[in-house]
């Protein structure tokens, strides 16, 4: 597989402020790559460097192996779907899509063929004569994407293109975008702060925080094997337990929670005794009234606070005895737990191998929320 985009040790400083800090990534041809991170972490800055609107302070950006450092934005084989779309208000839909082709000096019949083909592809055949303000939010979205795709870029960059849409339309467009990408086969680099968008659409995701990449991997890898506390918390839902790591007499480790309760831990983590750790357990790893009495199971009695019914995504809010924190527990809709009511007492447990833990560092976001 050819590498479409390769970013090597790229840094961007604005004065003293480091917006993008030594970031590297490479995307194979035809892949859907996402950069996921909270607001202000430097996603747009990184994308603008790839598109050529900012010059990087250090590092190199290559497209199909060619260094882009001295290449003007209009000469780069990438196109950017802007965060606010940036459609040309004085042109109709057809002219918007034809703009790039005209700049290349293509002939009118060829332009018409390509533009109409793309309008069909994005599900808006015959919309060419419409003006921009006659379009709905979702339609504008598609025109902004069509305007770039018609140029057949090596990489299509998308800056939170679904951010302005309402929740329902966003769900729909997620699927549409993924299908479109599979159809046209163009390499997509997609940035978002919505982890579910990134997970659903991407072949690979880079999780970004405060200008750095915390981890790059498939959605499954990020979900099951987060590389940092930040990733564990940002990707998917997680319960966080603050604990202090202790060494037992046989050299193994266990985590002691604030109330003196000990949890078994299991896994290849960088552990050291006496340090503060965050222990993460996913809601679906928590089992209600576990039957098997396995050695590796952490089991504790708890009171049910509330039942959060949401179909297949239903949850139980519980407080284990002596806990300050509430835990979110997946509630399978298999009729097995239908008898549970708020105020009931249950036992909950998790397999020690299903939890992950990270030494508590002073990372900024999501602490003490």
């Amino acid at each position, binding site marked *: 597989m050819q590498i479409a985009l390769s970013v090597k040790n790229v840094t961007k400083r604005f004065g003293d402020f480091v917006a993008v800090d030594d970031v590297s990534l490479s995307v194979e041809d035809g892949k859907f790559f996402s950069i996921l991170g909270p607001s202000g972490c430097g996603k747009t800055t990184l994308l603008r460097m790839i*598109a*050529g*609107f900012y010059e990087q302070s250090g590092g190199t950006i290559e497209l199909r192996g060619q260094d882009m450092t001295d290449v*003007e*934005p*209009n*000469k780069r084989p990438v*196109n*950017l779907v*802007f*965060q*606010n779309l*940036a*459609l*040309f*208000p*004085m042109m109709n839909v057809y002219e918007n899509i034809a*703009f*790039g082709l005209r*700049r*290349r000096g293509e002939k009118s019949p060829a332009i018409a063929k390509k533009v109409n083909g793309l309008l069909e592809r994005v599900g808006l055949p015959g919309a060419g004569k419409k003006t921009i303000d006659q379009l709905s939010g979702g339609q504008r979205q598609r025109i902004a994407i069509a*305007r*770039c795709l018609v*140029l057949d870029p090596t990489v299509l960059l998308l800056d939170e293109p679904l951010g302005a849409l309402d929740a329902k339309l966003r769900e729909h467009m997620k699927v549409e975008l993924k299908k479109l990408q599979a159809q046209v086969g163009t390499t997509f680099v997609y940035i978002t702060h919505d982890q579910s968008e990134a997970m659903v659409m991407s072949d690979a995701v880079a999780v970004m925080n405060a200008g750095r990449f915390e981890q790059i991997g498939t959605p499954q890898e990020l979900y099951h094997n987060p590389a940092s506390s930040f990733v564990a918390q940002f990707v998917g839902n997680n319960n966080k337990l603050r604990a202090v790591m202790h060494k037992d007499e046989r050299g193994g480790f266990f985590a002691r929670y604030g109330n003196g309760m000990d949890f078994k831990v299991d896994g290849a983590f960088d552990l050291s005794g006496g340090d503060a750790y965050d222990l993460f357990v996913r809601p679906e790893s928590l089992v209600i009234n576990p039957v098997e009495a396995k050695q590796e199971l952490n089991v504790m009695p708890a009171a049910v606070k509330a039942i959060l019914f949401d179909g297949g995504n239903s949850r139980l809010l519980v407080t284990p005895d002596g806990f300050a924190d509430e835990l979110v527990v997946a509630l399978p809709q298999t009729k097995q737990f239908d008898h549970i009511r708020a105020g009931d007492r249950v036992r909950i447990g998790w397999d020690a191998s299903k939890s992950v833990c990270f030494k508590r560092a002073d990372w900024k976001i999501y602490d003490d929320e």
Partner: protein
Amino acid sequence: MRKRSSFSKAVFIGTIVFLSLPLLVLVLYSFNESKSGSWTGFSLRWYVKLFTDSPQLWRAFGNSVIVALSSALVATMIGTLGAVAVNWYKFRLRKYLRTITFLPMILPEIIIGVSLLVFFSGIGLKLSLFTVFVAHVSFNLPFVFLLVLARLEEFDFSIIEAARDLGASETQTLLKVILPISMPGIISGFLTAVTLSLEDFVITFFVTGPGATTLPLYVYSAIRFGVSPVINALSVVMILGTVALTWSTRNFLKYIAAK
């Protein structure tokens, strides 16, 4: 409630009468047979005289038109490019530049007139129609600049970047994106400049030279020897012209906005 609305109606009618009565009198007297203040009968003789026997007036009118069109054109070109540059290159002095361009708009005209006169004589430029043209360009410039800038600022800067991203060079971006979107601002800037230039008296008075009389200057000097009914006739023609121009530009701007 009712009383108030009839009160506001009265104020409205009063204002209209107050504003248009002098105009009505003017129109009426332009058709007066006699030269003096009393009405002696209907006649078109002043119109005939205006169109057939007023060479100086038409020369002044010609000067005014030349100065108005040329100064408006130059001011529009410079002002537009200036606004584009200020909007495009977001340099730090931008804020101050705006304030500086506001200055000529709020300064009394007499100060501008005097300073231009001092400037011209300082660099040894002989007063002529050319100095009038230069002066008009200078006081028209801020209007065009601000009108175009205001229009440009309605749009997000990202459409300029989008044009670059889609393969447009800087020149193509200017011609295909920036100028089309600023066109309403450019046109209203140009028309404002033409109007301001046509009617300017004070500044022109200071910087004009021999043989470079504009229409307002001519009218003023003619009136000093008593109101000539020819001037009344000219005023009526100009009122009609202004109304026609305003009406057609309004429709034109509407047409552009709808496009």
